[in-house]
């Protein structure tokens, strides 16, 4: 088996509003035999916000983040869709433009660093599937999720755009469905499977756009009678779970759709106690899920 060691890039959310993501990732990784070396010196990826103000700064900061993984000689593993696409964007641009790479390195050298382009950027979901492998996962399941209908919510930045992601067909991705099946659960084919949670226009268009999208997404999972939604992205999670009450008031309908982080779902099937996975930390109650585990 290939060595499953990664430079672990947590991102801001897992260190801020989603501690349960951080904790469940560590627990599940350990069970699956993945070694995560945390990049404690890494900064925020800019989340698209810095990119829309000062592109060069965003590229430089992320080149530094990747260089930290290169120092360890490891690939960089994220647990957030937006971190993935922002770091990949930096890598793609620097690897394809020697002049730009040199300009960024001139800045990094001032601090004794260099971006070489030797580390890949990968996401926890992909490493679970390709690194650990679904067959191995199947063997490790002790509490199959057979009681559950689960609504996969990919989140934009783990499928689009293809020139930065390319892991699977953005029009018809299947990775989360396959994982759900390996864990013994049943995936729903709901309308909002590939839709957007609305997170990124929250501060400018909360009422006009964001909350309407959030509500549509959660409702769509409910229509298919899903027991819960699952997402590989903490920003989608914040939007769909913590902001679900706001989304409900926006459309005047009660939804009450629980949302799990990807590692929490895996953890349940691997028999990790729900409390350790932080299932009590969600805004939309997960009690019904707990009663079925």
């Amino acid at each position, binding site marked *: 088996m290939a060595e499953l060691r990664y430079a672990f890039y947590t991102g801001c959310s897992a260190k801020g509003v989603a501690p349960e993501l951080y904790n469940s990732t560590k627990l599940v990784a350990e069970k699956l035999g993945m070694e995560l070396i945390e990049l404690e010196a*890494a900064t925020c990826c800019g989340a698209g*916000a*810095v990119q829309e103000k000062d592109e*060069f700064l965003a*590229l430089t900061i992320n080149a530094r983040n990747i260089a930290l993984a290169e120092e360890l000689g490891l690939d960089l593993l994220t647990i957030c869709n937006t971190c993935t696409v922002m770091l990949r964007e930096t890598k793609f641009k620097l690897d394809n433009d020697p002049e730009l790479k040199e300009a960024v390195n001139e800045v990094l050298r001032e601090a004794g660093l260099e971006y070489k382009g030797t580390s890949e950027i990968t996401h926890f979901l992909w490493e679970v599937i390709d690194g650990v492998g679904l067959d191995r996962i199947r063997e490790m399941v002790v509490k199959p999720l057979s009681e559950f209908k689960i609504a996969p919510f990919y989140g934009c930045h783990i499928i689009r755009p293809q020139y930065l992601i390319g892991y699977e067909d953005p029009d018809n991705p299947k990775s989360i469905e396959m994982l759900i099946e390996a864990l013994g659960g049943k995936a729903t084919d709901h309308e909002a499977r590939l839709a957007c949670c609305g997170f990124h226009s929250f501060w400018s268009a909360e009422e006009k756009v964001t909350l309407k999208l959030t509500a549509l997404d959660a409702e769509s999972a409910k229509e298919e009678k899903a027991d819960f939604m699952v997402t590989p992205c903490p920003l989608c999670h914040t939007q769909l779970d913590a902001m679900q009450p706001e989304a409900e008031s926006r459309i005047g309908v009660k939804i009450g759709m629980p949302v799990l982080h990807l590692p929490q779902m895996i953890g349940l099937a691997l028999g990790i106690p729900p409390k350790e996975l932080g299932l009590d930390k969600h805004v939309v109650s997960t009690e019904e899920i707990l009663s079925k585990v």
Partner: protein
Amino acid sequence: MEKFKLKVFRYDPTKDPEPYYKTYELPIEKGMTVLSALFKAKEEQDPSISFRYNCRAAICGSCAMRINGHATLACKVQITHLLEKYNTDTIVVEPIGNVKPLKDLIYDMDWLVDKLKKVKPWFIPKEPPPPDGKEYRQDPYDHHKIDFASDCILCASCMSDCNALKVNKDYLGPMVLAKAYRFAADSRDGAKRDRLEAVLKDLNLEWCVRCWECTTRCPKEVQPYENIIRLRIMAAEEGYKTPGEIHAEIFEKDIYKRGLLNEMLLPMRQEGVIGAVKRAPFGIRMMLKGKVNFADFLGGHKVKRIEEVRKIYEKAKEKKKYVKIKLPQIMGVVYEDKRKNRKRANFTEKLNETANK
């Protein structure tokens, strides 16, 4: 000969109370596009199917449709590829999304034209043409800035699948914003300020949710979302203090001060005291769930090697104005994970395996 099903959205408002779908069985022919399949169905089975087309070569932009849920040019995609891609025997053809269907696959275009007019999609020269009778000139980098955006064929595939437009039809949308960028960024254009005003009306430019659907759908290489980013950079440079700009400033400051974003203090800094009050229920909810890190209210912890971060930050800010960042070429590019021996998931195959188990 092997056959496939072409399931077509049908609607004639003069006689149908509701739209419906009609399915045509056709032989699978090598190289057959969805547009040629539609022709075949029309010629051999049902002359009443209506759709727009012209060039049949992905140039004119007339034939955009939603095919198996995603907008694209019907003359550009092949039946055999689609059947394999969706692992199906049925191709579903609908009008593009976010528009009013007029008849079958034909939709109302006035809506798009009205939106386009708002950004004055024509060149407004800064100065009279050069006296020597030559054309307006431009240096290569200035040309590069608008090169991709100029390739738009107004097919509206991006408008069809835009997430922000899906829930708010007042959004200008990617096609229109890309067009606004194409002229605002033109070094010879004299109406940059007006164009920015037009896209910033009701903060329209910032309704974009960064879903990247537009760039993914575009059959050319326009990269509408990437152009939207550039419009926003332009607005910031012109001194517009929008919520997006304030948000970006908070991110920059936090990267400098502590490395990571302080999410707990964000509402207060973004919207002031009013914001903090408005967001109080959210904050309390997060606290009750034990999601809040109390240290964050006092500024929070710093990442390691923060001095290094600050040095890099300062240098990057100094160097910024000398760097010419190019838009990447993305036509047909699928990101390639360069790790050797990287296992590639063949999902169709694996799914079938799972199904058989």
